[in-house]
């Protein structure tokens, strides 16, 4: 049984974390990360060739997380596979015991480590959500009955603070329409703006897990602003971290404040500690969620 689904249905404030499969076959570092994070998380996202860079398959890595006794959220991007492969992998995921899926479009290959790759995008994330919902109902995307279906908890990404806001919201509602049961959002920068827009999604029946990004140094903030699509750290936060004597501590403090502010306006937090697993632990404990 999906612990994440149970917790969300109970109305618990959930915590999710994230690990990346290795660029190779040695999963020890990933599993060490999982060991550190799992006691503090309801579930852990296992990314799928994130940033369009080559990693071990999320399918195998998610299963490894499960075998290690933790609950994974299997990520599936539309970039690398056509509709046959996507459905086939979803079926595989279910047989491997993976119950949570996060469906995303994926970054363009030109920004990754294989810039000459063909981006597939046969389906977009909205369409794949609809396909996965159909598979939950026992049919493939053409309506043909499956020999044994699945029952995934379906997740999607949302970017509530991105402008133009009406288009972003319409887009997220479109994903709810297509089957998204929960959202994990882009890192929240302004809780008030987030709250207003998350409310619309929650009213539509989706659970909203707010992204909390550890802004652990001025260098990281610069990287985010210059290189990460769809995210910009506001000046006052950049200043606060940049001018601190101990940026990491300040970033943990900021994250704890954000979690507190998000308690009433979100259904949980997705903490992205950018490799600083201990910081996630400190954030969760500092927020009284441990």
């Amino acid at each position: 049984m999906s612990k994440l689904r149970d917790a969300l249905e109970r109305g618990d404030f959930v915590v999710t974390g994230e690990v990346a499969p290795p660029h190779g076959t040695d999963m020890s570092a990933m599993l060490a990360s999982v060991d550190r994070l799992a006691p503090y998380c309801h579930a852990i996202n296992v990314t799928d060739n994130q940033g369009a860079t080559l990693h071990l398959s999320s399918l195998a890595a998610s299963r490894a997380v499960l075998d290690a006794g933790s609950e994974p959220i299997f990520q599936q991007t539309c970039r690398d596979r056509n509709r046959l492969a996507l459905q086939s992998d979803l079926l595989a995921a279910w047989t491997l015991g993976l119950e949570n899926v996060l469906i995303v479009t994926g970054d363009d290959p030109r920004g990754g480590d294989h810039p000459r790759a063909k981006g597939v995008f046969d389906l977009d994330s909205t369409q794949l959500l609809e396909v996965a919902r159909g598979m939950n109902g026992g049919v493939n995307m053409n309506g043909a009955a499956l020999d044994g279906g699945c029952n995934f908890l379906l997740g999607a990404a949302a970017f509530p603070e991105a402008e133009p806001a009406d288009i972003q919201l319409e887009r997220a509602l479109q994903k709810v329409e297509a089957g998204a049961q929960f959202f994990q959002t882009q890192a929240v920068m302004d809780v008030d703006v987030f709250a207003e827009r998350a409310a619309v999604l929650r009213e539509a029946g989706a659970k909203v897990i707010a992204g909390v990004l550890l802004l652990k140094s001025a260098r990281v903030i610069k990287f985010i602003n210059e290189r990460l699509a769809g995210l910009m750290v506001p000046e006052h936060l950049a200043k606060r971290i940049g001018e601190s004597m101990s940026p990491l501590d300040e970033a943990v403090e900021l994250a704890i404040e954000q979690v507190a502010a998000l308690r009433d306006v979100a259904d949980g937090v997705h903490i992205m500690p950018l490799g600083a697993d201990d910081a996630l632990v400190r954030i969760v404990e500092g927020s009284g969620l441990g």
Partner: protein
Amino acid sequence: MIITKPRDWSRIFANLQSVGAKSVFLMGCGQCATVAKTGGEPELEAAAELLKAEGYEVTGWAVGEVACHLGGTKLETRKRVGDIDAADAVVVLSCGAGVQTVAESVSKPVFPGLESVFLGNVIRAGVFEERCQTCGDCVLDLTAGICPVTTCPKGLLNGPCGGMWDGMCEVLTDRECAHVRIRRRLAEQGRVAVKVVAPKDHSAKLKPGALNLRDRKTPSAGSGS
């Protein structure tokens, strides 16, 4: 129109060398390649000069009316049969369709002189943009006349993707996101976006495409299937 750009001459010279050609006949196209300024009369003259400077003999050149038109091209090459016979090879400054038509019309080795890059809209003289990829399953009815298959770098039908920032595209950061434009135009026209645009029918874009009007019993009822 089909947009072409000059092909690297080193490749063309290598092609000519591969068949030991010393003399060349040049062909252009009076349509697209003329508009694109890649295969009209001035470009053919320049190509002839370049070939001569490299020591090749140019036996002649011709700008056919429509290079991709098989009947017209056969006629054109027949008119120039002497010059073509005198050449060891033919270089065609047209899109790949034209090159193939010429290759079918003459018995000499035929080499492409241009790169065919896309089906383009002429924005103004000399400025071309790709706005359609002839996918065979058009969604412009749902997207306010803006093609996401082509103008969204990821070809997403439902967007914007998560990389959109301030209305701008994640991949082509100097451009507005196609889906932002689509939704704005729909709104301006008081139209509601379709909830979820369905996955494309890629079978509609069967390779190679073929359409035979002569086989059609009722042309107006053409179903596109």
